[in-house]
């Protein structure tokens, strides 16, 4: 079953074509990796899918509904969650409050908050190993802590599609493994995952399928091994 259908998407910034005619299909439950050099349009693609940007042409369908012009927060409520390449914590709020925001606005919309929300938020933080700092300000977290918080918040919307934008950038190899384990666990629960990553080791281990973008176009879309073997991808990555 197709969960996300991206159809012939194009996005321009002034004279610069960030995405040209990009199409992409994601099946429910799939683990999809997206690779490509800096500036190849990966983040732009995500921003279009999540609603932070509106494409000039093309369409996006989520679970059969056309969401191309839908406001970002509405897409979130349909079940699309994301993390940011540079973490964007609510720094003046505690970790619990950070996670409570999506709980109140998506998962338990219309219900009174209070103890139930807090309990659930702490549960999510616990899964990320952030239990002890639950009442600390988000601004005080370390880099890896911030990435985990991003993940906890994203999971709080109870997503069906989770989009991860370089959640492992800047982490040590132990931390990468730790993060991978968490993401695998999420996938195990049936959440579809779309992951952008530069760390090849991680993306190869994680993905069932890999899409490679270059200069705003899809240049490869296959199993990890096949993509790595693709001469075009090799040229992009190894230069030439």
């Amino acid at each position, binding site marked *: 079953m197709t969960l996300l259908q991206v159809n012939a998407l194009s996005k321009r910034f002034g004279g610069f074509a960030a995405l040209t005619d990009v199409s992409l299909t994601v099946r429910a439950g799939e683990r999809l990796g997206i690779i490509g050099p800096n500036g190849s349009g990966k983040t732009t693609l995500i921003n279009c899918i999540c609603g932070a940007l509106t494409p000039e042409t093309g369409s996006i369908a989520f679970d059969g509904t056309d969401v191309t012009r839908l*406001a970002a927060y509405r897409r*979130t409520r349909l079940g699309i969650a994301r993390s*940011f390449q540079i973490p964007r914590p609510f720094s*003046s709020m505690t970790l619990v409050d950070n996670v409570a*925001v999506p709980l*109140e606005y998506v998962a338990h919309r219309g219900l009174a*908050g209070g103890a139930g929300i807090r309990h659930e938020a702490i549960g999510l933080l616990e899964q990320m190993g952030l239990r002890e700092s639950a009442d600390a*300000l988000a601004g005080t977290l370390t880099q890896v802590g911030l990435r985990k918080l991003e993940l906890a918040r994203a999971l709080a919307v109870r997503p069906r599609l989770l989009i991860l934008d370089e959640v492992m950038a800047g982490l040590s190899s132990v931390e990468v493994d730790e993060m991978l384990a968490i993401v695998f666990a999420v996938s195990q629960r049936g959440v579809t995952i779309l992951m952008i990553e530069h760390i090849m080791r991680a993306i190869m281990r994680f993905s069932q399928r890999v899409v490679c973008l270059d200069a705003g176009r899809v240049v490869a879309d296959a199993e990890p091994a096949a993509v790595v073997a693709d001469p075009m991808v090799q040229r992009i990555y190894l230069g030439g």
Partner: protein
Amino acid sequence: MGHWHRFSLGAVAVLAAAVVATQVVDNEYFFYAGYVVLQFVVLATAWNILGGYAGYVNFGSGAFFAVGAYVAVALIKAFAAPLLVQVLAAMAVTGLMGFAVGAMTLRLRGIFFSIATVAVAVICETAVMNWGFVGGARGVAVLAPPPMLFSSTTRLLFVVMTLFALLAVAVARSIQTSWIGRGLRALRDSEEAAESLGVPTLKLKLFAATTSGALMGLAGAPFPLYMNFIEPTSAFSLNYAVSALAMPIIGGTASWIGPVIGAVLLGSVQQIVTVTVSSELNVLIVGVVLVVFVVVAPQGILGLLRRLAGRGGPQ
């Protein structure tokens, strides 16, 4: 929710104290000064709903205040409308003003909203100056009807403004402690993250802008009766814009109590303390207080108190 009980109890006590004061305090000046302080409580609280919670700075608070006052004047002139009608109409108009400015600029970076409020202030002032019906640039005398229940209009207005202050604070407090308040804080810290986590940021901002605008109109509506005479220069004074912003910053913007502390402190202490200070130094004191506070106490008095209490957490 025990907190609400305590708050309502406190509110009733404050109102009762205000009413009792009008019966036992002989000194009329107390009510003149008290009215001004309470008016600043309303204005600062209103400003903080958008400026403090959501981080969108309104520079034109004076215009919202003055439009509230002039709506009241127009209604008095046209229909001799009672105070309640004036107040409701003023709130409706300034709330709409907040909504309109917000709808136009709240999609953009915060500073564009600030600039738009400056523009709106100039346009409103020019419009009032050219509107002969409410006195235009010459101003107009507004004679208050004999007060009901109280021995003077000022005492009546003092109680009315106490009520307004409590109302404004209750609104601010309920916003702050609700999911709306959490959403506003979230979007203040990161608008994109908030939106991606299901927070309808534009709607929340519009809600805050409308509420804030309406409460500023509330602060201004009784002003003509208090002054007995109103003209654009003093109604649109830069004082209101600066105070509305300075008081929450001095008190602390994170919580509803911050603007109240700031307004009561700055509004009242100034009137009493510096009887012996020559006038230029007035302005100097404001300047120095602003600079010192934002430098030394970034979270305002509230943050200072928390630091003293040794708790690092917010609210």
